[in-house]
């Protein structure tokens, strides 16, 4: 029987590998890495909202992060590992799930499935593209190099000028807005899903875990879409001189 060959095949693998390649283990990888990534996204958003406090605040924050030195690389590599684990596991599960139903119904009528849940792979892919673009843009200075070298009076990297001027380009801020709206959608399903995957079963918790996805999604939407939108609409003062 083919199915028993499958069992034998999986038994030959070392324990941890067997776990992360099992159906539930792969989901646990997604949930734990997703948790790390959501934590990062929330902290990153709160940090970035300092743009509304003016140049001193955001530039000092940027300077503080740069000043972390090696520690900054610990965070970066940790996040990279989480991202790789998340995407690799997602890609594998999507392929397995598609092959689990080779012939589809001619007539499909979902009763329950939510839009956000159905579009997880698509929203995820756009977010991945966005992460790469975003790193090239504000971390690498490869997208708008002319905005990357400003310094404020204290001799710090002038993040405020880079960001506010960068978002004067509607193509760039448009991509930030769309990608972060999709990130919010991704998290509106993902965060609630995470609790189910990690086995939060108590019925009393369910209203909370079901609400937390949409709540966090909404917070991320307001914060992360708000920054490029406010800059593009001229609601954040553009530094004089820098133009």
């Amino acid at each position: 029987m083919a199915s028993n060959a499958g069992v034998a095949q999986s038994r030959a693998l070392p324990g941890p590998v067997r776990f992360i390649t099992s159906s539930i283990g792969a989901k646990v990888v997604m949930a734990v890495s997703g948790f790390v990534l959501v934590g990062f996204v929330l902290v990153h958003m709160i940090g970035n909202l300092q743009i509304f406090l003016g140049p001193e605040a955001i530039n000092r924050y940027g300077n503080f992060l740069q000043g972390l030195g090696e520690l900054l690389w610990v965070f970066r590599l940790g996040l990279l590992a989480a991202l790789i684990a998340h995407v690799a596991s997602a890609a594998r599960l999507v392929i397995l799930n598609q092959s689990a139903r080779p012939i589809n119904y001619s007539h499909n009528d979902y009763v329950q499935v939510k839009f956000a849940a159905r579009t997880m792979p698509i929203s995820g892919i756009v977010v991945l593209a966005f992460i790469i673009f975003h790193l090239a843009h504000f971390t690498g200075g490869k997208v708008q190099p002319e905005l990357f070298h400003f310094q404020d009076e204290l001799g710090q990297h002038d993040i405020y000028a880079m960001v506010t001027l960068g978002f004067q380009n509607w193509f760039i801020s448009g991509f930030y807005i769309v990608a972060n709206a999709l990130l919010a959608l991704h998290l509106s399903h993902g965060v609630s899903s995470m609790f189910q995957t990690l086995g939060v079963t108590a019925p009393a918790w369910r209203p909370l875990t079901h609400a937390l996805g949409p709540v966090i999604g909404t917070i991320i939407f307001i914060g992360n879409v708000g920054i490029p939108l406010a800059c593009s609409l001229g609601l954040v003062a553009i530094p004089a001189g820098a133009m």
Partner: protein
Amino acid sequence: MHLTLHVWRQKSANDKGRLVQYEVDNISSDMSFLEMLDVFNESLIAKGEEPVAFDHDCREGICGACSLVINGIPHGPDEGTTVCQLHMRRFKDGDTIYIEPWRAKAFPVIRDLIVDRTAFDRIQQAGGFITINTGGAPDANALPIAKTEADLAMDAAACIGCGACVAACPNASAMLFVGAKVSQFLHLPQGHPERARRVKAMVEQMDAEGFGNCTNHYECMAACPKEIDVRVIAELNLEFMKAKISGRE
């Protein structure tokens, strides 16, 4: 009533199969859905055609044999109902009805609307039982079990193993079924000694059968004729993690 049926016809596991359109007359709204198919099959036989093969047994919603996807919904439009308990009064004269088999790689079609669900049997054989003979029914209260725990076990044990969860899941995942079969023992003392071995073996078999993976859409719960709650999937996840991390046998 007059109905237009689009029925999946497939001669054998190797045949490609296709939807065939039929017109049926003289259907009473008092008939059950399966009685409607019986009448329809009589008419096919009278014309010298092959009747449509479909699974059924008890026709009272307890055996889990009946298994039709009706207009895209396993067991049809009524919530918490097997298709044998679905009645034609749910439909109107002139309606068009699509009837298809459960669709999953792990449930290959044998003929027309009948699929091979032995994958579920193999999952059960891998660990969905208690190996010792527990004897006759013990005296009431000899083994105290909290009412809340007993209720959780009984709710999970309501699963009739029909496979509607797999049919409904966009990923053809069997986790509601496996969750129910693990959960029914999880809340009873008799189930505890073998819990780690049970969950590992059942999940391993489930994966090997080629079912998909849960992505928490909860379509299974909406389709389940016994309204099994997706908390059994969360329990399955936690139980599997505990078994793997503790390394217990």
